[in-house]
């Protein structure tokens, strides 16, 4: 399925006595290794220079943190 994303959402309980405007949907990011389990061989790699910047050798594990309202610039939406 093409629109796979590491970003997951959950809906907290909104109390009628909640003083602040409710945040109905909250998002969180899950690490790639949850979906990978035992790392398969010959995964696609970054070039050495990119790997140094990205912090990992394999593209699939590249997952920089962006705030909820920050635009994600990484390969994963």
């Amino acid at each position, binding site marked *: 399925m093409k629109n796979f994303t590491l970003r997951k959402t959950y809906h907290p309980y909104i109390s009628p006595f909640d003083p602040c405007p409710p945040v109905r949907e909250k998002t969180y990011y899950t690490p790639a290794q949850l979906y990978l389990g035992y*790392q398969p*061989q*010959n995964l696609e790699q970054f070039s*050495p*220079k990119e*790997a*140094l910047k990205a912090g*990992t*050798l394999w593209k699939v594990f590249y997952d920089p943190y962006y705030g909820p309202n920050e635009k994600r610039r990484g390969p994963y939406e």
Partner: protein
Amino acid sequence: MSNKQLPQEFYTMMEELQTLDFVLVELTLYLDTHPDDYNAITQFNEFSHARRILKNQFEEKFGPLQQFGNSYSDYPWNWNDPPWPWQI
């Protein structure tokens, strides 16, 4: 004291060394859990070879990187010359 200035080449070679080291660290950790991944092992050996060559080139120009026999020494004994790693 000596305000020794290092050429730009020092920094480019140091970054290249750092890049190769990072790949070697990643591959080492990967190979610990994947001992029979042939391609990764060949890649590891290629990078290890490249790192050895770069280290020799670096040390010819800028002096020893490591001690206790891991690097040749110039004359006079200069492994403790600045810059130290945190001074670079």
